C-alpha cells in the first residue's frame, strides 16, 4: 500500500495511464531469445504468421532479447509482476523460475493431448512439485564433429569408443602448428559445467550417486583427471563457445562435441575446410542431452489470456511445425522421433541420426529438484572446480573435495 502511494505520488501518475486493450481482442505476449537469431528466426516467424492468420481475435506481441541478456531481463519482468504470457526457457533455467512460483501448472491442459503421449522422455524433466510446467519444443543430444583432414594428417582414425577418442585427441595436438585435438569451452561459461559432468558420465560415474554427492569417490577423481588431461592439454584455454566453434570451423582442431544444430553452421566454413567436416553419433555412451527448449505459461494470468496463450503453445508444437523445426534448425523436436516422413528420412539422413541420438539421450544434469531450483549455484560451484582443474596445478582430489563440501553446504540434498 505505502509502496503504491509512494509510486503514484512520485510520478504523479496512476496505474490508469496504462493502455487498456480492447475487450474483444485478447493480447498475449511471447518472449524468446530466438526471434532474431539466425537459424531459428525463420521458423518462429512462420509460427507467428501462421498463428496470427488462424487467430485474428488474438494479438501476439513479441519480446525479443538476445540470449546473453535474456534471463536477467525475464527475471526483471517476472519479479516486478509484469511477465510475458508465454515464455521460452531452457530446461536448465526452468527450475529457478518454477521455484519462484512463476510458471503455471499445465496438468489439466496437457491431459488428453498428444503432449501426454507422443513427447520425448525429456518432457518429464519439466515437472515441478509433481505437476507439468512446460512443453518441450526441442530436444537435444551431443554429437561428435570431426575434421577428417586433421585426423588424417595426425594419422588417427575416427574414434569408436571413449578410449580411442582420448588417444586421438592427444595425438592430434601440435602447438607448433596451432592445431589442437579438441575445441572446447575453457573459460567461465556454462558449457564448462556440461563438459565436466559428461566426462564423469562417459566414464561411468556421476555427480550424484545413491542420493549423495559423489565427487570425492576414486572413480570421480580418475574421471576428472582424464578431463584435465584431455581438455586441459589439448584444447586452447580461455575460449568461450563462440571462439571454440570458430576454431573448429576454421579447421584448427580435430574434434568438437556440440549440439546437433551446429551441423547447419558447418556451411559457414570456407569451402576447402567444409568438405572435411563431419558429424556422427557419439561413439560412446550414454547418449546425453543438455536439455532442450521449452514453452511455459506465466502463473496468475486471467482465464481468457491463459486460454489464448495455451492455444499459441499448442500451435507451435503441432506436428507439421515440429517437423519443420527439425528440418530448418537441425535441432531434434520435442515430439519423439516420429516427425520425419520416409521421404524426409531419405532426403535428410543426418536428421535421422540426430533424432535417434536425441530419442536415446538422457538428461545430462541431475534430476534432483533442489539442484534444479539452485541450478545457477550448482553450476557456479562445478564451474569453479572445472576451471581450477584446467588452469591451476592444484591436486584433483583437493579440487573435488572443495567442490563437494561447497555443494553439501549450499545445496544440501536431504
Amino acid at each position, binding site marked *: 500500500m505505502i509502496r503504491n502511494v509512494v509510486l503514484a505520488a512520485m*510520478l504523479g501518475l496512476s496505474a490508469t495511464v496504462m493502455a487498456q486493450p480492447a475487450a474483444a481482442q485478447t493480447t498475449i505476449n511471447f518472449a524468446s531469445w*530466438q526471434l532474431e537469431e539466425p537459424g531459428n528466426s525463420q521458423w518462429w516467424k512462420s509460427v507467428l504468421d501462421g498463428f496470427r492468420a488462424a487467430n485474428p481475435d488474438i494479438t501476439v506481441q513479441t519480446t525479443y532479447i538476445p540470449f546473453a541478456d535474456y534471463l536477467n*531481463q525475464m527475471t*526483471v519482468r517476472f519479479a*516486478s509482476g509484469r511477465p510475458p504470457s508465454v515464455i521460452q526457457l531452457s530446461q536448465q533455467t526452468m527450475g529457478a523460475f518454477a521455484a519462484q512460483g512463476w510458471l503455471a501448472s499445465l496438468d489439466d491442459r496437457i491431459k488428453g493431448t498428444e503432449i501426454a503421449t507422443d513427447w520425448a522422455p525429456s518432457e518429464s524433466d519439466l515437472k515441478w512439485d509433481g505437476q507439468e510446467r512446460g512443453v518441450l519444443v526441442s530436444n537435444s543430444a551431443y554429437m561428435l564433429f570431426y575434421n577428417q583432414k586433421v585426423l588424417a594428417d595426425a594419422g588417427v582414425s575416427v574414434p569408436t569408443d571413449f578410449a580411442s577418442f582420448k588417444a586421438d585427441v592427444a595425438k592430434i595436438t601440435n602447438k607448433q602448428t596451432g592445431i589442437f585435438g579438441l575445441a572446447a569451452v575453457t573459460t567461465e561459461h556454462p558449457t564448462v559445467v556440461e563438459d565436466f559432468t559428461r566426462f564423469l558420465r562417459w566414464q561411468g560415474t556421476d555427480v550424484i550417486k545413491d542420493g549423495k554427492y559423489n565427487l570425492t569417490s576414486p572413480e570421480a577423481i580418475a574421471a576428472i583427471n582424464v578431463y584435465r588431461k584431455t581438455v586441459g592439454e589439448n584444447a586452447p584455454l580461455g575460449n568461450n563457445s*563462440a571462439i571454440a566453434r*570458430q576454431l573448429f570451423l576454421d579447421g584448427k582442431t580435430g574434434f568438437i562435441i556440440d549440439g546437433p544444430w551446429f551441423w547447419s553452421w558447418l556451411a559457414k566454413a570456407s569451402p576447402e575446410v567444409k568438405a572435411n567436416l563431419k558429424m556422427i553419433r557419439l561413439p560412446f555412451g550414454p547418449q546425453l542431452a543438455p536439455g532442450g527448449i521449452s514453452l511455459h505459461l506465466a502463473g496468475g494470468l486471467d482465464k481468457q489470456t491463459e486460454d489464448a496463450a495455451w492455444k499459441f503453445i499448442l500451435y507451435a508444437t503441432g506436428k507439421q511445425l515440429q517437423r519443420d523445426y527439425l528440418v530448418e534448425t537441425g535441432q531434434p523436436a520435442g515430439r519423439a522421433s516420429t516427425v520425419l516422413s520416409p521421404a524426409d528420412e531419405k532426403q535428410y539422413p543426418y536428421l535421422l541420426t540426430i533424432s535417434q541420438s536425441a530419442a536415446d539421450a538422457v538428461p545430462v544434469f541431475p534430476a534432483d529438484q533442489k539442484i534444479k531450483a539452485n541450478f545457477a549455484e550448482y553450476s557456479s560451484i562445478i564451474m569453479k572446480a572445472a576451471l581450477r582443474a584446467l588452469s591451476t596445478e592444484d591436486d584433483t582430489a583437493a579440487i573435488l573435495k572443495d567442490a563437494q563440501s561447497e555443494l553439501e553446504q549450499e545445496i544440501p540434498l536431504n
Partner: protein
Amino acid sequence: MTKAKLANLAGLLVMIAFVVITLFPFYWMVMTAIMPTSAILSRAPSLLPDLSRISFTAFVSVFTKSPFLSWMLSSLIVGGASTILSLVVSTLAGYSLSRWNSKPQQALGAALLISKLIPSSLILIPLFIIYSTAGLIDSYLGLVLAHMTIGVPLATWLMKGFFDRIPRELEQAATIDGASQIQALWLVVLPLVKPGLAASTVYLMLTSWSEFIFGRTLITEPTRQVLTVGMQSFVGEQMVDWQLLMAAGTISIVPAIIVFVFLEPFLVSGMTKGALAGT
C-alpha cells in the same frame, strides 16, 4: 632549435607512441571487420592488412542484415535530447551551487551524487516497476530521463567548477546595470565557460551513446532499440558474427568522432584571458 621546441618534439613523440599503443585494440577491431576471420584467428596473424584479401562487405551487411540505421537513429534521438536537457539542467544547477552555499543547498548538491552510488543491477527491478506503472516502457522519453539521471550529477559538478573560476564581480556589475541574475548568467557568464559547456556536452553525449543496461531493460520494441543494445544481437546464443560485430562497432564510433571534431575548438578556446586578468 630552441629548448622549448625540443621539449615539444619529445612531447609529440611520446604522444604519438601513446596513441599508437592505445588505439591498437581499435585498429584490430577494424582489421577483424575487413579481413577474413580465419586470417585473424591465427597463431601469427599479420599485423598489416593483406590488401588482396580486404573486403568491406561486412560494413554493407551491417546495414542490410540489421536495422542498424534505426538503432543509430534511436541513439541519436535519445542522445541528443538527453544531452540538451541535461546540459540546461546541470548548467543551472552548477551555477546555483557555485553562487550560493546554504546548508540545504549543499545537501541537495551532494544528494545528486547518491545516484552514482547504487549498483545499477539493483535499480533495474524497482525502475522497471516505476516505468511500467507510468507507461514509460518503450518510450524515448523514459530512456532520456534515465540517461539524464546518469549524466546530470557529474555535469552539474563539472559546471560548478567552471563557474567557481568566474569572479562574481562580473555578474554583480551586470546586475547593477539592470540585468537580472538570469540575464547576467546568460550574457556575461556563459560565454566565459564555453570550455566547460563543451566538456559537459562531450561527456553527456558519450555517456548516453554508450549506455547499455537501461536501454536494454526499458526498451524492448525492436525498432526503438538503441545502438548498444541492437549490436548485441550479433552475439547470438551459439555464435558470434565477428566481422559484422566489429564492423558495427567501428561504425558506432563515427558519430562520436564527429562530435569531437565539432566541439574541439571550444574545448581549447583558451579562457578569455582578459576577463580573468584581475584575479
